């Protein structure tokens, strides 16, 4: 069993090594990469089956490969673990990952750097698996940074494009802010628990810190008049880390730009898996978050605010992928808000369903882009439903799932979050989230209408359906998006039971009225969106304004610009840094640093000039001085030897 769970991350890693060092041809690269990830999926399935065969309270396997760091009291084992939460994450990563690998074979066909692409992709899967399987914060951080690196490499995969490399750098830099907080959180955890392990190894060794949260209960730091609970400090730092990785307010700005990467990358990394790392972290560190009432409030509000902000922004986008990107941010906001309200199972549930249907939507969008010869602007599309029937149908299924229409997967998970909010009296959060879900339905209706209905507004290309290697994953994912909600149906609540050993949560009540109202609202808003943009299709011009712009004016422009956050950061933080760098380069470096260095040089130069006179070159004089020294030493020794 331990060997089996080591196989899960190692199989993609082998693929990475093969792609880096051995494989030179495109075809082999795709096959090896997809094959090994698929194999990892199979291994994960077997592992899950074996895990299910154990008694619920024993469902955690910890395996230590070697002592990674051992410096005195700071010891970190290279240990991974496998428990129900990890299991579902690993299933999502390897399953969706395998499909996206297969899809990539078709999508990336003909690109000159395909081998490198698959190497990155395999490395990403490895790192993501380490992230979810790590048994300590440091190994998790390794995965965390590893996926960040892969994200950077893949966003900037077409680095010839200025925008792509700029977006890559932006993603990397914004994530650093969160990572800094993560490191601080690690230091705090080590300071207060003396270990970075989540759980003990089950063999009588030291317990992990998640099992010892009670150690810091009531422990306060800070000045007497304004103390902070240690749990609040740690969990808040982790929250900041999560906002970076999961693109939450205020650090969400990098995700829409990240769409500059290849579309399968957007599907895998920036929708299904990596960006959910923050949510996973919160679920994993649930005991810490639950211990802090303050942080929980912040989490809920940040999630809700992000959901609303991104939802509105998604409404006004023209780029087919940016719509989905803002939608992703919005849905991540849902999950985070769920975490903040204590509905961790719902958050994970939504994470899983979202992972499936958002991957489906991205892949379908990729198929559209592929079929329209790299067109991304929806104003140049329209009427594609006849040219790309499979893409159209799967896209609609994805849209229905995202909009939360019965019986598609998205409905069940979103409904669970809303129900939890209302049943726990989180009314303001509920209102925001409900509003956002309505907006979601609206912009998905808009998008479907813009892309597939009406007539083709740009006649410069001939749309065609994508090859089978791309459509088959779409169909598989569409099936998942349709029936995926079954894993946690209100009556059966399999997922809740499965995660019970980790998250200790009971299934919530199913709120029939809420479900009815939400469905009705979603259907209505979805139809409204579709109707507005099909009837006004004629008014949409390439490069023109949105029909809704007439009614809302500046607000619409604000939504289009995602409420000017980019511009804000550009004018404050970035401008400030630029000015600082300018100061350092033009003033401080030549005058301060160079002055210091040259000053030291000049000082010693002067000193040397003075001392030079002593160096006569006469060996005999040196010997004389030497003798004086010997005499002094001997004299001192004599004096003290008395």
């Amino acid at each position, binding site marked *: 069993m331990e060997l089996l769970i080591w196989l899960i991350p190692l199989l993609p890693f082998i693929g990475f090594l093969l792609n880096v060092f051995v494989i030179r041809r495109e075809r082999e690269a795709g096959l090896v990469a997809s094959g090994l990830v698929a194999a990892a999926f199979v291994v994960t399935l077997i592992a899950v089956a074996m895990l299910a065969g154990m008694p619920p309270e024993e469902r955690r396997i910890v395996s230590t490969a070697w002592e990674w760091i051992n410096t005195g009291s700071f010891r970190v084992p290279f240990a991974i673990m496998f428990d129900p939460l990890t299991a579902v994450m690993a299933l999502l990563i390897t399953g969706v990952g395998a499909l996206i690998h297969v899809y990539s074979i078709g999508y990336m066909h003909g690109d000159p750097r395909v081998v490198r692409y698959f190497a990155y992709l395999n490395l990403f899967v490895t790192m993501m698996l380490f992230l979810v399987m790590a048994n300590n914060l440091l190994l998790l951080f390794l995965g965390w940074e590893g996926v960040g690196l892969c994200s950077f490499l893949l966003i900037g995969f077409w680095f010839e494009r200025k925008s792509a490399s700029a977006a890559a750098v932006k993603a990397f830099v914004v994530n650093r802010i969160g990572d800094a907080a993560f490191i601080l959180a690690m230091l705090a955890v080590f300071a207060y628990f003396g270990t970075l392990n989540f759980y003990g190894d089950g063999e009588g060794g030291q317990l992990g810190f998640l099992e010892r949260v009670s150690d810091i209960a009531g422990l306060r730091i800070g000045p007497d008049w304004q103390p902070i609970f240690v749990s609040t400090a740690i969990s808040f730092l982790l929250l900041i880390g999560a906002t970076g990785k999961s693109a939450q307010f205020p650090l969400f700005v990098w995700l829409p730009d990240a769409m500059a990467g290849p579309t399968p990358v957007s599907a895998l990394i920036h929708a299904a898996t990596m960006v959910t790392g923050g949510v996973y972290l919160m679920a994993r560190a649930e005991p810490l978050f639950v211990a802090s009432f303050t942080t929980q409030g912040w989490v809920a509000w940040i999630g809700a605010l992000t959901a609303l902000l991104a939802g509105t922004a998604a409404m006004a986008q023209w780029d087919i992928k940016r719509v989905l990107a803002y939608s992703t941010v919005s849905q991540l906001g849902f999950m985070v808000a769920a975490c903040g309200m204590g509905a961790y199972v719902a958050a994970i549930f939504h994470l899983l369903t979202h992972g499936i249907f958002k991957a489906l939507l991205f892949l379908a969008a990729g198929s559209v882009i592929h079929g329209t010869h790299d067109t991304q602007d929806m104003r140049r599309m329209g009427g594609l439903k006849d040219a790309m029937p499979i893409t159209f149908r799967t896209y609609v299924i994805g849209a229905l799932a995202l909009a939360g229409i019965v019986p598609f997967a998205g409905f069940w998970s979103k409904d669970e979050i809303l129900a939890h909010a209302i049943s726990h009296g989180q009314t303001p959060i509920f209102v925001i989230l409900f509003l956002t879900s309505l907006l979601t339905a609206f912009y998905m209706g808009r998008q479907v209408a813009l892309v597939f209905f009406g007539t083709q507004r740009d006649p410069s290309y001939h749309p065609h359906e994508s090859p089978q290697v791309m459509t088959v994953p779409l169909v598989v994912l569409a099936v998942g998006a349709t029936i995926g909600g079954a894993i946690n149906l209100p009556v059966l609540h399999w997922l809740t039971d499965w995660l019970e050993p980790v998250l200790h949560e009971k299934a919530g009540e199913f709120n029939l009225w809420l479900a009815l109202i939400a469905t009705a609202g979603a259907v209505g808003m979805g139809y409204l969106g579709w109707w507005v943009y099909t009837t006004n299709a004629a008014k949409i011009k390439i490069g023109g304004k949105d029909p809704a712009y007439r009614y809302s004016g500046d607000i619409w422009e604000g939504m289009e610009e995602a409420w000017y956050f980019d511009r804000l950061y550009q004018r404050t933080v970035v401008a400030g840094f630029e000015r600082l760098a300018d100061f350092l380069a033009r003033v401080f470096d030549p005058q301060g640093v160079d002055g210091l260095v040259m000053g030291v040089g000049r000082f010693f130069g002067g000193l040397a000039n003075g001392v030079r006179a*002593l*160096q*006569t*070159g006469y*060996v*005999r004089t040196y010997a*004389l001085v030497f003798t004086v020294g010997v005499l002094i030493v001997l004299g001192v020794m004599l004096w003290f030897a008395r």
Partner: protein
Amino acid sequence: MVPTSYYVLLSAILFTIGVLGVLLRRNAIVVFMSVELMLNAANLALVAFARERLAVEAQVLVFFVITVAAAEVAVGLALLVSIFRTKRTADVDEVSTLKG
């Protein structure tokens, strides 16, 4: 028996003469000889103390000193010959270009 201190006294005198040779003489070869004299003076003191304690190890040490001194003389004289070839003199004061 002759007291050890007599030998030590002799050794001290010889050592001082060696030092004076280094400080006063300008002929590089004589300077070198003075260094050898100092080595010998040290050896003498060493053997005298060894005799007092009957320590054979000190004889071993003197043996090493003598051997290494032989190597040192060989290299040193080779250097002197090299210097003489370029400078045409064995005056140590002439070899003073390395100065501030």
